[in-house]
C-alpha cells in the first residue's frame, strides 16, 4: 500500500477535513481545520477535492517519510519546510519520491500549518468526517493525534502541475486583528454602554486558547442575564461568562452552552484568530448578516478566480 510514515508527530498533528456536520444532535462537535481557508489552499494547489483529508500541524515539528512517489503542499503558518534537508517553498506543490523525508520546523508566524498530499490521505471517516476531535476520541486514526510510526495511506496519483500561490495572495497573520462579528443570540440583552465597551476596547488572546475556543482578556462586559437554558452554539459564537471576558468558540466547541452570547465572529476571521498566538491584540467590529454573506461570497469568487489563474513553476 502506498503511504506516508510519521517519523515525528510534532507538537500536535491532527488529521482533519472541513469538519463533521449533521451530527450535533448526538453531541458531536464539528472539528475540522481551524484555518479552513489555508487548509483549502493546500488541497486546491494539488487539485484535490475541497474536503480531502490533510494534516493540521500546530506549532510545528512534524516529520514524514514518503513510501511512495506523490506530491505535497504545505500552507498556513510560516515555518521552515524541507524535503531531504533542502528548503522547500510553502504554498507550493512539491514532488516527493519514496524515501524522501519531509520536515516541518517550528512556526514563526501563525500557529497551524497544513500538509496536504495529492488525492488526500485515505482514512475511514467516522460520522461522515475524518476530523479528529481528541476530547471525543472521534476521527483520525482511532480518535488520536498522529504518533510516531503511524502509516497514512495515500492513493497512486498521476502527474500534477507544480502550482504555487503567489505571495500577494497568501494570508498575513498580522499582530493586530479586527474580528467582524454578526450580532445575534442575546445581543439585545447587552446594554448600549456594554456593547460600546466591547467594540471600543482592544482584547488580547490569552494562553487559554485551543481548538475549542479562544479566551480573551480586556474590558469586562456584563449582560443583564447571566444564565440561560443551554442552547446550540454555532461556529465563532462569542460567549460572555460571568467574569465578563469573551470566549470565541471555535471548531471543537461544546455543542450546547448556557452563557449569554453577543453574536458570532465571521468564519473568515475565525480562521485568522486560530492562527493568533497568546498576546495578540484584537478588536471587534459589528457587521450585518448581509455584509457577512457578501464577504463570504466575495471570498469564494476571489479564491476561484485566483485558482483559475495559477501557473505552473
Amino acid at each position, binding site marked *: 500500500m502506498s503511504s506516508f510514515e510519521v517519523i515525528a508527530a510534532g507538537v500536535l498533528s491532527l488529521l482533519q477535513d472541513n469538519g463533521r456536520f449533521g451530527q450535533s444532535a448526538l*453531541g458531536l462537535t464539528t472539528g475540522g481545520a481551524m484555518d479552513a481557508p489555508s487548509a483549502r489552499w493546500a488541497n486546491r494547489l494539488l487539485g484535490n477535492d475541497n474536503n480531502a483529508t490533510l494534516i493540521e500541524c500546530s506549532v510545528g515539528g512534524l516529520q514524514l517519510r514518503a513510501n511512495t512517489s506523490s506530491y505535497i503542499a504545505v500552507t498556513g503558518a510560516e515555518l521552515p519546510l524541507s524535503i531531504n534537508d533542502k528548503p522547500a517553498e510553502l504554498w507550493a506543490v512539491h514532488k516527493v519520491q519514496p524515501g524522501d523525508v519531509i520536515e516541518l520546523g517550528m512556526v514563526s508566524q501563525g500557529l497551524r500549518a497544513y500538509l496536504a498530499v495529492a488525492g488526500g490521505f485515505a482514512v475511514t471517516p467516522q460520522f461522515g468526517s475524518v476530523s479528529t476531535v481528541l476530547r471525543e476520541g472521534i476521527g483520525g486514526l482511532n480518535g488520536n493525534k498522529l504518533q510516531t510510526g503511524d502509516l497514512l495511506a495515500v492513493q497512486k496519483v498521476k502527474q500534477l502541475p507544480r502550482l504555487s500561490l503567489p505571495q500577494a495572495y497568501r494570508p498575513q497573520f498580522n499582530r493586530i486583528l479586527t474580528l467582524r462579528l454578526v450580532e445575534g*443570540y442575546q445581543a439585545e440583552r447587552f446594554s448600549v454602554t456594554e456593547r460600546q465597551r466591547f467594540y471600543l476596547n482592544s482584547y488580547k488572546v490569552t494562553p487559554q486558547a485551543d481548538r475549542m475556543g479562544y479566551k480573551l482578556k480586556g474590558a469586562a462586559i456584563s449582560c443583564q442575564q447571566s444564565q440561560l*437554558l443551554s*442552547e446550540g452554539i454555532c461556529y465563532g459564537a462569542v460567549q460572555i461568562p460571568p467574569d465578563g471576558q469573551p470566549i470565541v468558540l471555535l471548531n471543537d466547541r461544546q455543542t450546547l452552552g448556557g452563557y449569554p452570547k453577543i453574536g458570532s465572529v465571521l468564519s473568515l476571521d475565525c480562521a485568522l484568530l486560530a492562527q493568533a498566538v497568546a498576546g495578540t491584540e484584537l478588536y471587534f467590529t459589528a457587521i450585518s448578516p448581509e455584509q457577512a*454573506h457578501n464577504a463570504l461570497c466575495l471570498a469564494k469568487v476571489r479564491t476561484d478566480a485566483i485558482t483559475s489563474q495559477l501557473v505552473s513553476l
Partner: protein
Amino acid sequence: MSKPQYQLTVAGENALMLYFDQRIDPGISALVHQACALIRAELAAELIDVLPSYASVLVMFNPLRTDHFRVQAQLKLCLAQLQNNDSQSGKRVELPVYYSEESGPDLALIAQTKNISIDEVIQRHQAISYRVYAIGFAPGFAYLGEVDPLLQMPRLATPRAKVPRGAVAIADRQTAVYPAQSPGGWNLIGLCPTRMFNPEQTPAMPVSVGDEVRFVTIDKAEFLRLGGELQGAEL
C-alpha cells in the same frame, strides 16, 4: 387551541436560532421535537445541521447556497404547521440501572441530606418517566428531566477527575447516564450497562431529543450479564 409562539433570531453568518418560551417543560420540548422534524423534512437540501435543546433549535445553513432571508421565510412557512400538543412525541426507552452504594458513591450522601432511606432515593429516581430535553456536553450525554424535587442535588463543589462510563447521576433537577469515562460534577447513584454512545453502532445512541426514558432496577448479576463493568469513581 392557540398557535405556538416562537421567535427567530440571528445566531451567526450562517445560523438562526428558533426560540420557544424559555423554560424546561414537556410541552415546549414537544414543540422543539416537532420543529426539528419539520425543518429537517422541508429545508434539508440547504442545511448543514439542526441542533435542538431545551427550548430552542439552532439551524445552520450553507451560506453559499442560501441566505438569512430565504431561510427565515422557509422556516416561517414550515413552522406554521406547528401544533401545541403535549403528548409524547418520541419513543419510549427503558434503561437498566444497578443502584447500590458500590455503584453509586453518592447515594448515601443524598439519603442523608434529604433525610430519607437509600431505598427511597432509588424508588423516587425510578418512579418518574423522564424526557430527553437535550443532548450535549459530550457525545451521547442526554439531559433527562425532571427529577423528583426531593432528590434535587447541587453539583459537587469539586468535580471528580474520573466518572466511569455508565454512571447514573443527578444534578439540580436533571439526571443523566455518562456515555464515556470523563471528569464530572454530578452526584452518582448507580451504573447503567447500556452504552449511551457507541460509534460502532447505528444508531450510535439509544435515545434522541424528545424521547421518554424510564430507569429500571437490576441487580449486580444482571448488570454484569448485560456487559456492565464495575469501575469506581475517583476524586
